[in-house]
């Protein structure tokens, strides 16, 4: 079975992290974002994944070779020379997705994190027999998104309404699709929106069905949602594979620590913390609701909350980092410094306090 992951563009909302790596390779819960999706696809029997990208293929290809070998799955890239929207890339990758077997293929949006109940989705798709299945998720504020109006009992989709002013439903497109190869005949190779052009056509022909996504869903394309997403992900991990989480007297709530990371004495870690490979957390450190990426050193007595610390950065002794501080790659915060929402570009030294949210170039 095949799958396409829409990787798209420059990831500017996740800067400064995406100044160092393309977005799919930015780590989430100690794993490159795209690896979460590739693993879920492999688990349901996909043998080839096509990445639809329009930026930095060279950097991606190196990493992908690694994953290919480790996961024993074929990974290829389909590069857009002009932005093709959300449906165009499918037409571009047509030859890779259609193998004559008639099997449906998955399409995932690379910014999305969820439990990926792809096996259930396959069964749902076979049962209803329609041309296309999409996952939808319930949200509190549907007017911010495109709402999918569907028949509750069968899941048959009636229509899509973009940012509705009046309530029409509370389910939105979760960015996970399972499509029959015949859908590709309906997509031209030009900038096309799958929600505005392709799906409405299929819905009108009564061929589009929606399944409500069980479990959590988050679009982690920007820092605030990345941090919330980690909480949801770790919650889910607690239910499904609690052994992967760390426990101990110095741990509170859900905490994920890579086996190569070291944590000192007298620390209090958690809730909702991920500590990446090779990290060194010295003694007396307090971490909550934060991500600490590969190779970071947090010095003694520091306190970090609601922030993201980029690869190979260091946080000085007694430093206090909070309120959506994002440190890019190789950022060094001096001892005793305070950062309130600083967004720091790679390769910087922070020697003075950041008293209110600002970008440090």
């Amino acid at each position, binding site marked *: 079975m095949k799958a396409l992951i829409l990787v798209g563009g*420059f990831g*500017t909302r996740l*800067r400064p992290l995406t100044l160092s790596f393309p977005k799919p390779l930015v780590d989430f819960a100690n794993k490159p974002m795209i690896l979460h999706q590739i693993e879920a696809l492999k688990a349901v029997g996909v043998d080839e994944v096509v990445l639809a990208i329009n930026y930095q293929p060279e950097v991606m290809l190196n990493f992908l070779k690694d994953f290919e070998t480790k996961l024993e799955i074929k990974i290829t890239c389909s590069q857009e020379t002009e932005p093709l929207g959300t449906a165009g890339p499918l037409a571009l990758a047509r030859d890779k997705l259609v193998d004559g077997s008639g099997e449906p293929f998955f399409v995932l949006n690379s910014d999305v994190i969820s439990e990926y109940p792809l096996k259930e989705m396959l069964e749902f798709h076979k049962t209803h027999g329609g041309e296309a299945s999409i996952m939808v998720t319930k949200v509190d504020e549907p007017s911010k998104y495109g709402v999918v109006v569907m028949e509750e009992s069968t899941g048959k989709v009636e229509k899509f309404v973009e940012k509705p002013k009046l309530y029409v439903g509370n389910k939105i497109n979760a960015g996970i699709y399972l499509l029959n190869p015949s859908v590709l005949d309906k997509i031209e190779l030009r900038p096309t929106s799958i929600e505005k052009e392709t799906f409405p056509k299929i819905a009108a022909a009564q061929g589009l069905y929606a399944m409500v996504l069980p479990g959590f869903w988050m679009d982690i394309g920007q820092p605030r949602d990345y941090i919330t997403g980690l909480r949801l992900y770790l919650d889910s991990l607690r239910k499904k594979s609690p052994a992967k989480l760390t426990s101990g007297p110095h741990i509170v709530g859900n905490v994920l620590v890579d086996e190569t990371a070291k944590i000192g004495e007298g620390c209090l870690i958690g809730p909702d913390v991920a500590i990446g490979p090779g990290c060194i957390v010295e003694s007396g450190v307090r971490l909550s609701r934060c991500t600490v990426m590969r190779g970071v050193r947090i010095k003694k007595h520091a306190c970090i909350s609601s922030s993201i610390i980029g690869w190979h950065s260091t946080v000085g002794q007694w430093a206090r980092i909070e309120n959506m501080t994002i440190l890019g790659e*190789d950022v060094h915060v001096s001892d005793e410094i305070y950062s309130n929402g600083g967004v720091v*570009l790679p*390769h*910087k030294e922070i020697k003075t306090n950041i008293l209110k949210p600002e970008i440090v*170039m």
Partner: protein
Amino acid sequence: MGSSMEEKVVAVIMVGGPTKGTRFRPLSLNIPKPLFPIAGQPMVHHPISACKRIPNLAQIYLVGFYEEREFALYVSAISNELKVPVRYLREDKPHGSAGGLYHFRNLIMEDSPSHIFLLNCDVCCSFPLPEMLEAHRGYGGIGTLLVIKGSPESASQFGELVADPVTNELLHYTEKPETFVSDRINCGVYVFTPEIFNAIGDVSTQRKDRATLKRVSSFEALQPATRIPTDFVRLDQDILSPLAGKKQLYTYETMDFWEQIKSPGMSLRCSGLYLSQFRLTSPQLLASGDGTSIAIVIGDVYIHPSAKVHPTAKIGPNVSISANARVGPGVRLMSCIILDDVEIMENAVVTNAIVGWKSSIGRWSRVQAEGVYNTKLGVTILGDSVSVEDEVVVTSSIVLPNKTLNVSVQDEIIL
């Protein structure tokens, strides 16, 4: 002319490296700062072409931390164009401003030069190098510094100094003093005789000797833990300060302009300075036009031959337009740098801004700033491939590459 065949001269231009120059962001995110265009040419081109005026110039070395491949293309192109061998040398680790020179001394001395120029790539001035060399020969010291009279406020990276008004000897030198020392500033352009290598070598050796001393005084034991490695030699503190007043170092004063290109805003100012210098030295490089078949040009303007500018546009003063840029009908450009492949559509206005490669500026849009060169948002900077949509106003802002602005912004940094 009388100069013997042995009187060869070598020039060394320090270009710095990627992790040091974060002040030049966002322009330096996608291009090394020394290659950023000023007045239509890469920044480093200006000191290099100044070196060409030195009699008997044998070789130019660019020394820095960037990867070799970042400079490979430029170096071979410029060597061909100027018919002078230019070579990029990469420092594997920091050696300090003098240590770097010392590290490559064997290469530098290969042609047995009688004099060695040391320049900093981000200095913007008239580079009176032949005159400096002449004066240096007269003084008979081991080095001569280019100096300028500046305001006490202008924070110089290169230090304040006191010179003897009659002999021009360097009497006293301080780096970044807190109190006022003098109004003479070190410009960061030097000429040395090969004896300078002995002076640098001595500093290295002294450090090595001190490091091997087993008995350390209690005062030294209180010094900060980071001891300077023995081959790290700083020009200011380790050479200029100690040698001042010993009849070894002299000064040559320039009466022309001098600035340092530290921030993106300053590159706009220095572009203007070089353009006005072209008016005196190479007026054929500047554009002119009266609005009939060519656009109206006011003041000093550089337009690359491949750029297309509509005759109804009005350009200048202080505008630099790079290769393949397209300026549409009724556009007004003042005090700006327009980089390669930019498209500016009808009736747009750009003032006090730098527009990055491949960006597009929509119809009736306005990209502006106050033009205060050394403040963070004093000049609006658009990174590569930024798209400003029709009628949008961008004021005093910095926009990182690949962004699209469809609403007006002011006083913002957009990641």
